[in-house]
């Protein structure tokens, strides 16, 4: 009988004390016990809440951004012997019920990276988010050479091999696009799978904070990364 593949779920979180417990419990209820929450230098009790809920909780002493926290979580999962690593947001917008769909192509050994995409089924997604994403996809394609339908999604799954090969340097939101570049550069096999996104009042509040100005900062960082 083939050895059961060890799946770790990595959740980067910044000031998510209010929801992190329910996020962790939901992941556990979906059948995944190995959860790593990375508290990215927040000022609330995210780490303690995650630990109490049963997750392995890590903490950045200072805030370094979603990309940096995700990478820390992936490094931790590698150290703990993960075969498959899933990343998802800490604000509860992703449905852990989708994890099984995401990891299936990796389990069969045919795919290295699975990208959860919100745009194949954008039901309930605000129109400006759809356009914001489309612009992000075009910029990512232009700068990094690979067109995907949701270059900004944080809900992804990686095989151990992909996690070893992908080498990112971005700390903040440009991280998601940098992963796309790495898939292209390292010639990794990828698949896009539609995911559900739950736009609650809480997660929408978080999205507003990542508005136009942050979008422009992300584009600037992506261009700077190319010329520096």
């Amino acid at each position, binding site marked *: 009988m083939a050895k059961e593949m060890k799946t770790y779920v990595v959740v980067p979180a910044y000031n998510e004390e209010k929801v992190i417990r329910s996020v962790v419990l939901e992941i556990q209820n979906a059948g995944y016990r190995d959860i790593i929450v990375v508290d990215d230098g927040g000022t609330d009790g995210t780490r303690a809440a995650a630990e109490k809920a049963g997750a392995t909780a*890590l*903490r*950045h002493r200072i805030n*370094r951004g979603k990309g*940096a926290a995700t990478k820390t979580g992936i490094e*931790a999962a590698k150290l703990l012997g993960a075969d498959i690593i899933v990343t998802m947001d800490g604000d509860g917008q992703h449905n852990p019920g989708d994890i099984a769909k995401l990891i299936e192509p990796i389990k069969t050994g045919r795919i290295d990276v699975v990208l959860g995409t919100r745009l194949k089924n954008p039901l309930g997604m605000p129109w400006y988010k759809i356009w914001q994403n489309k612009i992000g996809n075009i910029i990512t394609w232009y700068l990094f050479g690979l067109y995907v339908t949701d270059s900004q999604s944080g809900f992804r799954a990686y095989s151990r091999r992909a996690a070893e090969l992908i080498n990112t340097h971005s*700390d903040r939101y440009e991280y998601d696009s940098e992963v796309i570049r790495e898939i292209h*550069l390292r010639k990794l096999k990828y698949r896009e799978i539609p995911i559900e996104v739950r736009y609650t009042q809480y997660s929408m509040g978080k999205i507003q904070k990542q508005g136009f100005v942050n979008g422009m900062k992300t584009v600037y960082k992506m261009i700077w990364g190319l010329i*520096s």
Partner: protein
Amino acid sequence: MNSLHLYQIAIIFIAAVMIFQGAMNFVRGKNNQTILKLLIRIIVWGGMAVVAIYPDLTNTVAELIGMQGNINAVILTGFILVFLMIFKLLSAIERLEQQMTELTRKDALGEMKNEK
């Protein structure tokens, strides 16, 4: 071509160093240097070197945008220097940010290892 002025030599030297650094980074596979990054570096710094070697090229540009007079050359040199300083400063900040992230990550992972 007339003899080179000091500022021309300086620009050529700086451009050569920047292109050489980029090429070495690419050859060593350092800092995730890609062929695209290297090409952009060669175009930006190579372009500056070409203008420094053949300043007459700028006459065509000057005619196009309607600039006249020697003072423009001085202003242009100032711009190039400021550009260079900003470029170096931003590179240094970026490097420091990455080092800071690395330290933060090592600290977080070290704490996890100690707890296990």
